């Protein structure tokens, strides 16, 4: 998600003054053109040929065109072709079509500022919207303009901005590192953060006992305050113990178990939460749908079931691939492919509803609906017996996770092989990594730590110790759980939630009833008076 970044230390002054009018218009047109012409590797209808620009200097086909924003020249970056053109023609800017990056010939460098980011995002998204035939109507993208809304302007008046990065350690209250890592991942979750910092659940106004939402609200207030000393999440822990007996006590617990328990607690305390298509913050953030298609080998009949999921649990293949250096490595992609590959069911396990007798079938899982935040857990703890206390073994297989994940190949549409033409803008399926949980040691006596990202900065959290880190360090670590957030969110056209509408109609009805009662009482009084005359 593009954040509102302030201009850098040495912004290109030319960008601030010259990126306007015709120059900006051409920029936007170039970005739109680049989206419109991309076939994305899909086979072209009727062997149609694409019109491609050629370099104005060396005439070669441009696979990565740099376009001058002041004239019709386009050229290669290599050999300084475009840079030379700019100098010779006294033209200032050229744009790299595929990334939207701008090169300023006066500064002799690639330059960037917030206005440019906005222009790129707006034209990119608008072009994608034009190309998409949506079955469900979507709200066209618009930047949030706080100054355009009078209500919001008055709300912002008299407020002071404070630094707000959530880089605060959590004290270990006695084997509670499992709690700390999950809390850090929740704190750095952009959707949850925005919800609670947006005062959507004010703990001072809530009357529910042991309310998990109140605990979250208090947690966010602490973590995003100006105090950077480590914070002890005592009341959060106490509430968790009271709500989930199995998590009580000072023994080490499984972070994933605590994660799911917390999600359920918070969901149950949210206003308007329901058991079917709930719109609480937890479900709005984490809920996805998994489709299971079972195909009878004999008659071809397919039975599909859709299950709601809050996260994805992946098996770690024992058989690993070896990389260039001969080290065993499993990738997230490989785990997802295994998760969504067809699985054979024997005749003993399956009876077809259509042709009756037991027959072999193939079962396949795919993602029907992708949540804004995708949580993955790698099943690293293998229990030998069905008894939880039986000796368990931990799989320490390193897993390679990408900073950017494309979930398109694992969606129901991709897997089913039809309607591939209208999958919508690719950005809908793209996710960015924002948190990773690591576990070192054995099942019973291990230690949890985590990495989390704020904007483009990565930090490592070890209970109360928070240190600057890097993407590289995070990806080198062995993940137990990892969290991805969608690059771009889509919205249905705005509609007031049902529970608010019901509340309002109830209020109107009550007022009408009150008026009737008043009128009746008045009439009784009048009649009584008349009787005495």
């Amino acid at each position, binding site marked *: 998600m593009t954040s509102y970044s302030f201009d850098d230390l040495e912004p290109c002054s030319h960008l601030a003054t010259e990126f306007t009018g015709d120059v900006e218009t051409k920029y936007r047109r170039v970005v739109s053109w680049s989206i419109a012409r991309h*076939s994305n*590797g899909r*086979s072209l209808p009727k062997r149609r040929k694409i019109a491609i620009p050629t370099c104005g200097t060396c005439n070669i*086909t441009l696979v990565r065109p740099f376009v001058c924003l002041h004239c019709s020249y386009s050229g290669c970056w290599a050999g300084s072709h475009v840079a030379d053109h700019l100098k010779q023609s006294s033209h200032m800017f050229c744009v790299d079509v595929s990334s939207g990056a701008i*090169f300023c010939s006066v500064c002799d460098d690639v330059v960037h500022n917030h206005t440019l980011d906005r222009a790129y995002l707006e034209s990119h998204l608008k072009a994608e919207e034009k190309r998409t035939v949506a079955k469900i109507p979507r709200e066209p993208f618009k930047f949030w303009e706080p100054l355009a809304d009078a209500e919001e302007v008055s709300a912002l008046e008299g407020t002071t901005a404070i630094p707000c990065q959530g880089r605060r350690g959590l004290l270990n209250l006695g084997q509670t590192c499992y709690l700390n890592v999950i809390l850090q991942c929740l704190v750095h979750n952009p959707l949850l953060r925005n919800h609670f910092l947006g005062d959507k659940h004010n703990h001072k106004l809530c009357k529910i006992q042991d309310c998990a939402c109140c605990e979250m609200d208090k947690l966010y207030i602490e973590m995003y305050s100006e105090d950077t000393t480590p914070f002890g999440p005592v009341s959060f822990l106490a509430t968790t113990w009271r709500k989930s007996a199995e998590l009580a006590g000072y023994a080490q617990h499984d972070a994933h178990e605590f994660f799911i328990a917390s999600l359920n607690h918070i969901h149950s305390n949210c206003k308007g939460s329901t058991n079917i298509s709930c719109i609480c913050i937890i479900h709005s953030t984490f809920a996805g749908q998994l489709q299971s298609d079972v195909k009878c080998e004999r008659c071809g009949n397919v039975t599909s079931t859709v299950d709601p999921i809050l996260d994805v649990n992946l098996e770690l293949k024992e058989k690993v691939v070896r*990389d260039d250096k001969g080290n065993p490595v499993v*990738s997230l992609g*490989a785990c997802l492919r295994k998760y969504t590959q067809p699985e054979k069911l024997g005749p003993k396990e399956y009876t077809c509803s259509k042709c009756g007798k037991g027959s072999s079938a193939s079962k396949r899982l795919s993602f029907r609906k992708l949540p804004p935040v995708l949580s993955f857990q790698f099943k690293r703890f293998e229990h030998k017996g069905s008894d939880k206390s039986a000796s368990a073994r931990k799989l320490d297989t390193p897993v390679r996770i990408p900073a950017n994940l494309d979930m398109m190949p694992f969606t129901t549409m991709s897997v089913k092989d039809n309607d591939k033409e209208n999958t919508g803008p690719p950005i809908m399926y793209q996710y960015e990594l924002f948190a990773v949980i690591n576990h070192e040691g054995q099942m019973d006596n291990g230690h949890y730590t985590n990495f989390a990202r704020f904007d483009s900065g990565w930090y490592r959290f070890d209970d109360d110790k928070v240190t600057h880190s*890097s993407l590289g360090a995070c990806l080198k670590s062995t993940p137990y759980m990892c969290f991805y957030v969608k690059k771009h969110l889509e919205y249905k056209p705005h509609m007031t939630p049902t529970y608010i509408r019901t509340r309002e109609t109830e209020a109107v009805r009550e007022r009408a009833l009150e008026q009737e009662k008043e009128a009746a009482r008045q009439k009784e009084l009048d009649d009584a008076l008349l009787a005495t005359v």
Partner: protein
Amino acid sequence: MADVDAFYRRIKLRLVETGEWDRMKVTIGPKLNESGWLDDIKHKGVERASEMDQLSFQTLFEALSKAGHVGLPLPARRELQAMIREYLEKQFE
């Protein structure tokens, strides 16, 4: 040498015109991401940039291009070469 250059240009044009270039990119791209090569370049870029006194795109670009070519994972390289070879064979059937 001029012949080879002319050949290269013609083949490149055909690859792009027919959409084959895009198709190859879409096949290899995800593999480069999955192998960690893309993230490695990104990480190297951030590290180099943080060490530079005077940020310059061209300097970073040259350093990373070199590192990128060297560090290209073998399976991806082989697959891409095979795809190109297959395309060429089809063209000259």
